[in-house]
């Protein structure tokens, strides 16, 4: 695999996005935009892509399993003879009760009969096509018979879950918390990271160490004093404990952005400075355009974090169900529907949709990369 580390050309931004949305046409979409590969290279490309597909299938198998489970009927889950995919088996209503239909070998042929009375040595069946004929006694073990399962996804699980979880309200809360927090995080972390990456001042490395050290103490021991702070501020029962701190930067994102800013050569800021730009203008017109991939990464991280954050909304919003985000609603739903695996999986998959769409939209920035440094010579 000598070509493993050869880099992609910086092209095909939008085509990539389209191919992500319409997976089936991926190959065509990209090939139109790209120069054709030589036959030997095309073979290599096919092999390489094939290996990645295999790895990906293994990687995503729990998710595939979740999708299967989410489409099962409550009845199928827990049936030991059921197939892994969503399926139903035939039943027959007889004298006001429902009985399972089995494939019964009788007189050299296999008939589909409903099992009415179970027995260890012999059992009684009824023929759904001729119920009037009454019960048929069959000698043998019903446990050795098979039921015919047929593929049948229960799509209504999703609509049931949608109706049971108050999605519109929870979604509104979640999106609001995530977006406001994202704005706060990007603004504050970019400023602070810029300060650390581009300015020299006494105590800089000490302050940077302190910044990183703020994440060294496990939250289990700071949660009660933190709660007390917000309680004294009168913020418990509001979104403020979730939102205000995002405007004051956090170590993870500042560190990430600082690392990225440090890889951007200084020649362009210096040129801007010579042109008379102040630090703020340099930040906005020179640094930010070059740091897009990192800023987008931070945005995605914050959205996913806020989307799934469970603990903070729980402790600060436990008295205010109307203000709670989706993660709490989902957790609540899961405790109530613990016994219906299909609902739990459907609920989880539903909550994933929006973050995945956001990623699909944002990921084009990674394809594009930063070519500015090379272009603007």
């Amino acid at each position: 695999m000598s070509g493993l580390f050869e880099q992609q050309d910086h092209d095909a931004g939008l085509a990539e996005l389209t191919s992500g949305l319409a997976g089936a046409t991926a190959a065509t979409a990209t090939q139109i935009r790209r120069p054709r590969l030589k036959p030997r290279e095309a073979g290599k490309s096919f092999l390489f892509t094939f290996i990645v597909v295999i790895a990906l299938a293994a990687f995503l198998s729990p998710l595939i399993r979740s999708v299967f489970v989410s489409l099962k009927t409550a009845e199928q889950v827990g049936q030991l003879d059921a197939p892994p995919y969503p399926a139903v088996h035939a039943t027959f209503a007889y004298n006001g009760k429902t009985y399972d239909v089995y494939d019964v070998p009788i007189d050299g042929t296999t008939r589909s009969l409903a099992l009415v009375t179970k027995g260890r040595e012999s059992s009684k069946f009824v023929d759904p096509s001729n119920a009037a004929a009454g019960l048929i006694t069959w000698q043998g073990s019903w446990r050795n018979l098979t039921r015919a399962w047929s593929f049948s996804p229960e799509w209504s699980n999703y609509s049931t879950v949608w109706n049971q979880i108050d999605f519109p309200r929870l979604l509104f809360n979640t999106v609001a918390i995530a977006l406001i927090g994202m704005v706060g995080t990007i603004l504050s972390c970019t400023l602070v990271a810029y300060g650390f990456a581009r300015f020299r001042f006494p105590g800089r490395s000490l302050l940077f160490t302190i910044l990183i050290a703020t994440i060294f103490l496990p939250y289990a021991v700071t949660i009660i004093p933190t709660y007390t702070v917000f309680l004294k501020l009168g913020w418990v029962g509001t979104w403020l404990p979730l939102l205000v701190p995002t405007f004051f930067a956090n170590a993870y994102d500042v560190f990430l952005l600082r690392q990225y800013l440090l890889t951007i050569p200084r020649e362009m800021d210096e040129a801007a400075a010579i042109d008379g730009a102040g630090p703020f203008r340099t930040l906005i017109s020179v640094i930010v355009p070059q740091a897009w991939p990192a800023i987008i990464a931070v945005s995605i991280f914050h959205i996913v974090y806020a989307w799934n954050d469970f603990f903070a909304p729980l402790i600060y919003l436990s008295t205010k169900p109307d203000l709670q985000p989706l993660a709490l609603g989902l957790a609540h739903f899961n405790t109530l529907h613990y016994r219906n695996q299909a609902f739990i999986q459907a609920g989880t998959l539903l909550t994933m949709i929006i973050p995945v769409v956001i990623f699909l939209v944002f990921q084009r920035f990674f394809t594009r990369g930063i070519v500015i440094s090379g272009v603007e010579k």
Partner: protein
Amino acid sequence: MTARLSRPGVLFAVFALVASACGGSATPLSASNVPVSTSSAVPSVAPSSGPATVAPGGPVEIRWYCCLGGGEAPEQKTVEDKVVADFNAANPNIHVTLEVVTYDQANGQLTTEIQSGNGPDIVGPVGIGGANAFHGKWLDLGPLITKNNYDLSGFPSNVVDIYKLDEGQVGIPFAIYPSALFYKKGMFEEAGLKEPPHKYGDQYQMPDGSMVDWNYDTARKVAQLLTVDKNNKDATQAGFDPKKIAQWGLELQRDDLRGMGAYFGPGTLASGDGKTVAIPDAWKAAWKYYYNSIWTDHISLTGPQFESKDINPKDYPFFNGNTAMSENFLWSTYGVADAGDDWDLAAIPTYNGAATAAFNADTFRILKDSKHPDEAFTFLSYLLGDASGALLLAYGGFPARTAAQQAGIDALQAQFTNPIDWQVAVDGIEHADKPNFEDFMPAYNESLGLVGSGGKYLTKWGNTAGLDMDKEIQSLQDEMQKIWDKAP
């Protein structure tokens, strides 16, 4: 019990239950869509509401914290909201707010609130074990009971005594949950076996016609006949394949090792001087029986089977319909309908000649740190009195008040299409374990890590074949002793 509350017939039962449970003072404490005549919409429901004027400075704020053990379902919350609204309407001097935190998180959240000085006033419904997680934090209700002349004579005295602890009288009975043996009639029929006895003390007729005591040895033999593999061989037959079991014979209560032990005999781990771990002999026998059920007799699910959502998707294997017998508390009626419509209740088998039906009890408690204990007690009296009928039904609770128990049975039966012999459960109250298995022990929360729900030894025994159980039990005892020695 979720989702059934919306049925009009059951709503009527709520109404009837409320009427019967609180001595005839018909109150509108049913779910919100029950038609209530306007004239009785705002009756004085609470005992000491006094004149309807708001105290200077506004009403006293009381916070009710819910769900250290059930009560968070939307239907339940509807009832709770209604109960709170009615109380607030009738008591202008007190304003109650409800805080619902789901069971998984309720413990940590309450810890945070109490330690930050933001604790609620009243907590519940909470079981004995759930409350012991906050040992020392509960208010002794004794002085308030005396002050308000609260009448405790309507409860069985042994149930009142459950709440008489070193901390004082920390609770007044509300809901009780005796145990019984849940079993599937159809499986007994299919195997050609007699059903287990419904009356404590009755004998059991084995397939060969002999009459034997209904003890754990008998239960094991019957369970083996009811354990069947995919090839239709039961667990007593040659060629039985324990790797391909399709139906299991018996499931003990495996939420908590102490509870599992209590079905064999009453006791606590702190029964000695309170500082030395003493495991009751009956519990040791129960744990060995459990281990053999899994690994030798194959009548119970192994740990991995129990944890598999494909084999056991609904909390308890019995709910999935392929377990023949299962010991459990009466609260497990919430999911037992999933097992089909051929289940019933039978007597718990005896161990050493005596039957013990492990006992759970829930109530509401007031926190010591409450700034308004008098108002909290007013609300507590209301929850245990006028509101109790609606709440018990919503929680699926069995009334602790003797007089209300028939109404409780009727409400339970209304949830099922098959007739159940509820008298078995009522008889179980007499066989309740005393002392209760959830009673306080030193370093309660830390000790639970060994014997409690999802605890270390329960997990290990369910996952590992070939252990020496005497050694295991000794190791549990030693490990717990170390924890107790560190406790202040």
